[in-house]
């Protein structure tokens, strides 16, 4: 999950990283007040979970409270990559003499954290790596031995930085590593670190991502930063349909019926599990189908849970038919799934024989499942029909259903 810049900076501040004086403003009036509090030239930055702020006009300068209010008003009106800013960060602005780059992330190939440092900050780091490799260092950390300060020094020194700068930058990089390790981050980046006229160093911008799985571990920290549980920090905010899907999953601990994502089509999908859902979603689209949703069902959910999810999908406006499909299942029971989807369809006021385009879940208790499906007149196929063939059939029936009413 991605943090807003001001949240990232609060984390850095806890570990002693030097930062500009700053305030978060939610309105132009707030921004004017913040600017007079800070008492000097400021920079105002859109607080949005996206890169490309500068290019989009989400970063502006101001010298007076009046200018700041104007700048904030402009910034708050700009959507960046489809995302609304939550506010504006107002920061004191000093003269920057040189910019540096520092980041800690996982090197998935070697499965260790890696510290990336460059004395050419402020520009695209991929470009530095390609054009000026001697200005960029990569220093891998041990997972077994605790981090020690010399590793930060090594990272900085490898780019040729020495003297007083080496010691000051090493302290910042060391603190960044501590932040990365303390909060189960997948990325802790400061870009740029600025050396101000007068020699002080400050972190000017920061990007921090936390591992999704670690949210529970750091619940208190997140609460302290004012981040509620339902704030998913995905690339777009959840829709009402998606929130309802998450509630279905949370209401019952048996199995998984979640990760509901809304799409605009007419074919509802009750699909599983992780890999099976990805495969089947591709298969439906490949066959020319128009999915109403994505979801993942697995781990042997209860009848109630499968029914609740089915009812939700079936009740979505524009959904005429649903396709119930999974890979050959090991743990999920076919008969339990058959009961669940039929129940959900009936609770939505529809006829299972009409509404369920196809049922393709091969696996345990399949014979019992077939008895249920036949009783309700639902079309089903066994493992001799592939996932792609089943998806094709569902798409054909959905198209016919739309045409014929």
């Amino acid at each position, binding site marked *: 999950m991605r943090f807003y810049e001001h949240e990232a900076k609060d984390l850095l501040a806890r570990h002693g990283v030097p930062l500009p004086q700053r305030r978060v403003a939610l309105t132009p009036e707030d921004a004017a007040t913040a600017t007079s509090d800070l008492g000097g030239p400021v920079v105002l930055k859109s607080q949005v979970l996206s890169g490309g702020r500068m290019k989009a006009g989400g970063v502006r300068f101001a010298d007076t409270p009046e200018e700041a209010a104007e700048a904030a008003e402009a910034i708050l009106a700009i959507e960046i990559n489809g995302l609304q800013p939550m506010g504006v960060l107002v920061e004191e602005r000093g003269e920057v003499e040189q910019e540096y780059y520092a980041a800690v992330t*996982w090197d998935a190939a070697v499965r260790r954290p890696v510290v990336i440092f460059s004395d050419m900050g402020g520009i695209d780091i991929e470009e530095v790596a390609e054009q000026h490799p001697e200005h960029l260092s990569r220093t891998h950390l041990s997972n077994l031995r605790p981090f020690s300060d010399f590793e930060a020094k090594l990272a900085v020194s490898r780019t040729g930085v020495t003297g007083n700068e080496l010691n000051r930058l090493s302290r910042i990089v060391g603190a960044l590593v501590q932040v990365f390790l303390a909060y189960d981050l997948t990325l802790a980046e400061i870009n740029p670190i600025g050396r101000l006229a007068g020699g002080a160093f400050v972190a000017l911008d920061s990007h921090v991502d936390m591992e999704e799985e670690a949210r529970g571990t750091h619940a208190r920290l997140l609460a302290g930063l004012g981040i509620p549980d339902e704030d998913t920090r995905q690339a777009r905010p959840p829709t009402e349909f998606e929130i309802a899907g998450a509630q279905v999953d949370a209401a019952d601990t048996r199995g998984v019926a979640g990760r509901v994502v809304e799409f605009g089509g007419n074919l509802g999908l009750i699909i*599983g*599990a992780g890999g099976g859902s990805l*495969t089947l979603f591709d298969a439906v689209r490949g066959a020319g189908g128009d999915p109403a949703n994505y979801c993942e069902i697995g781990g042997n959910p209860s009848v109630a849970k499968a029914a609740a999810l089915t009812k939700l999908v079936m009740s979505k406006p524009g959904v005429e038919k649903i396709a119930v499909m999974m*890979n050959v299942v090991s743990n999920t029971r076919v008969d339990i799934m058959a009961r669940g989807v039929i129940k959900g369809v009936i609770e939505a006021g529809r006829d299972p024989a009409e509404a369920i385009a196809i049922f393709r879940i091969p696996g*345990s208790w399949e014979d019992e499942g077939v008895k249920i499906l036949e009783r309700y007149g639902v079309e089903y196929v066994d493992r001799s029909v592939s996932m792609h063939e089943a998806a094709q059939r569902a798409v054909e029936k959905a198209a016919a259903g739309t045409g014929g009413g």
Partner: protein
Amino acid sequence: MSILIDADSTFIIQGITGREAVTMTRELLDYGARVVGGVTPGRKGRDVHGVPVEDTVRALTERMQVDGSIVAVPPAFAADAVLEAIEAGVKLIVVVTERIPRAQVARAIEYASQEGARIIGPNCLGVISPGKSKMGGIGGAADSTRRAFVPGVVGVMSRSGGMTTEIANALSEAGLGVSTAVSIGGDAMIGSTYAELMPLFEADEQTQGIAIYSEPGGPMEAQLAAHMAEHGSRLPVVAFMAGRFMDEMPGMRFGHAGTIVEGRADTTADKIARLEAAGIAVAERIEEIPALLRERIEGAD
């Protein structure tokens, strides 16, 4: 032959008294696997379907040969359980548990490599050498496992547990069958990648081809492509790539924890290009995999 496990492999289950683990124990014993012990702290002296339970891994390794361990304990205790098994000298550890923090997984993997042990997973369904043994919930109940996994010539590696069974079933129905199938795990960081398992399949006489299931996210497919380009292989490899639709939705999360697209190299388009450049055939549908493999296996003779 087969890789990682055969009919004689003995193993234990850490967290054996958990609800899912009890079912898994029954299924493993029914399949003929040699489950020789289990560990749940505080439950020493009990048994699960006749398998003796101890408080520690060492209590078992001190009195019997233990080739492997299945770790099926809750996420908060899973990494500790892996370290305990490695320290006790167990050389193959299958980690079933999902949602273990990445830093803890990385630590266990580094310790394993230092001690000459191998980790499969986390967030996986385990390993099966059909007709011989299986380690983990892969395939489910013994009779459905036998139906989907017929002994044969194809090695399977998959980031999805469920799709391991789907692909094995297609290979079995087509008469090719499976030598060993490995559910390698759906997380961003796992103990054994495709490229790391390839040399084992290379050395296995039974294996004549490889089928892999891939997803968006992570460097694993690029690593396999680089491995194939550098070392070549006697084994034809056919890959299936799921989640192609995710290329249009960077930053959105679908499927396993490891699938999030963070950069260009994480997309399916990039992965497919790399795999194909390394001579790996990429199937459009699961049902194409057997024919693509058969052509290449027969062509190689």
